[in-house]
Each structure stands twice: as structure tokens, then as C-alpha cells.
């Protein structure tokens, strides 16, 4: 049974307000060498193998639902 991990991130051109706030907090903790923090999300899928290439199917899922092409990028990793 293929397990697939999708990593969704905000496009680099967009301000990541959450990442910036975490960066400020890291600075406050003394980690002054942190230059940038970007926060995304991980979506893990367990998929029943039906003989078709799972990566193409997950790409379709990303384009339709899992990511918003206006604001986000995604990477697909087939784990097993």
C-alpha cells in the first residue's frame, strides 16, 4: 500500500506572517543566526494500489484540492 507525503509551502514571493513571528521568537531565545523561517504543512496519504501510477494521481489531488496554486507550492514524495 503506497504511502505518500505531500509537502505544501507558501510561495516564496508571499509574506509568511506565521514564519516571521516564529523567527522573531527564535531571535528572542538567542538564535540570532536564523535568517528566515517559512512554515508549511505535511499531508500524509495511505493509498490503495489500483495499478495506476500513484504519483500522477496525487498530483491531480494537489491541483484540485490539497494545494492552492495561487498561493502555494507542493512536493510529492512516495514513501514506500
Amino acid at each position: 500500500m503506497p504511502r505518500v507525503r505531500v509537502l505544501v509551502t507558501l510561495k516564496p514571493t508571499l509574506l509568511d506572517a506565521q514564519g516571521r513571528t516564529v523567527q522573531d521568537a527564535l531571535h528572542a531565545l538567542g538564535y540570532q543566526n536564523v535568517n528566515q523561517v517559512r512554515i508549511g504543512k505535511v499531508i500524509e496519504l495511505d493509498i490503495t494500489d489500483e495499478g495506476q501510477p500513484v504519483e500522477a494521481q496525487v498530483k491531480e489531488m494537489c491541483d484540485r484540492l490539497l494545494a492552492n496554486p495561487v498561493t502555494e507550492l507542493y512536493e510529492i514524495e512516495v514513501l514506500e
Partner: protein
Amino acid sequence: MRFGVVVFPGSNCDADAYYAIRDVLQQPVEYIWHQDNDLHGVDCVILPGGFSYGDYLRCGAIARFSPVMQAVEEFARQGGLVIGICNGFQILCEAHLLPGALVRNEGLRFVCKHVYLRVENADTPFTNRCRAGEVLRIPIAHGEGRYVCDRETLQELQANNQILFRYCDSSGALTKESNPNGSLANIAGIANERFNVMGMMPHPERACEAILGSEDGLKIFESIVHSALAAAR
């Protein structure tokens, strides 16, 4: 003119919109359940504010695929009037009925307060009872209302006068301080190219009676009725 207010699981401004239409605007209105496949023959669909499907994944991302939204998309394609308020605006963007997207407020905080909006285009079904440049006072209540789009889309929005409302100060000046969420170009509300679909983050249904602090929101609903009457003539 008959209005329909769509109810998603997690909608929480549906009753406010229903009340504003029935009791203040005095027009017929009914609820439309998110599982419905048709729009009961209404003339204007309102997608209300709230947190449809818990805002899971992204605001509006799940609601966009509910059965009623397939009917709303078809209705919009045929030129029917659709107004999305707050979460409704987010759903319209996710459904690609409006360009761009709404992301986390620049300041990260949920902002709930009255703001000033400048009417940028008063020649639309949603703004014809306003004057161009008029300043409206209407509340916002959102955590993810920062409008973003790419440069080409912004140029198109500007060239076609599709930006209907921008955040401003009480005198109508577009300032950084008056932008509550970091929206691109102070954008608070936009329409599609055909001007039959409109989305806005502020809540006009919460500003329809003096006792609520402002009646400015009523102008938007009156505009919709006026445009329908004009079209029927």
C-alpha cells in the same frame, strides 16, 4: 426579488444575512442547504460568513466542492448574481469564480472591528446605490482576509475596475494604517469580469440598522435589488 442564503456546516452569519434581507430589506429570502443540488429558483445567492468545514485545509477549500457549489457555479456562468461575504469570499476564490486568494492576516491576529471602505466602482449590481469615492463604515471579523494575487491579475483587476472596495481612513485616503490585514492594494472586495459575482471580507449584513452602529451595508443589498428591477424593466 428572491434571495437564497447558503448554509454550510460551520456557517455562522447565515442568520444575520437572512435577517438583513427579510426584516430590513423586506425581500423574500430562504436558506439553501449545502447538500442541495439546485438553488430553488432564487435571483441572488448569498454565501455567508463563518468557518465552513472548520476552515480545514484552507478557508473555503472543502466548501467549494459541496453539491450546492456546483449549482452556484452553473448559476454564475449563466449570469446569476452571487455575493460572497467573508468566508463566502474565500469560497468564491477557492472555486475560481473570483481571482486571487485570501491568506493569513499580516498581523496574524483575528481582527474584529468597524473599518472604512472606499467605493471604487459604483457602476455595478452591488454598488449602484453608492457614489464613486463614497466612504462606507462596515465591520470586519476575520483572521485570514489578506487578499493576494499575482501582478498580472492585479493589473487586470485595476484595468477592468473590478476592485469595488478598498480599505481607507475616514476621509477616504488609502493608507497603510487603514489596511487591517495587509491586503494587496488595500483590496477589501472585488467582482469578476462580468460583474455578476462579488466577494468582500467586510460584513454588510452586520451594518444594516442604526442600532448596530451603521446602516451603510444596506446600500449593497439595495443595489442588488435596484439592479434586478432595472434589468426587469
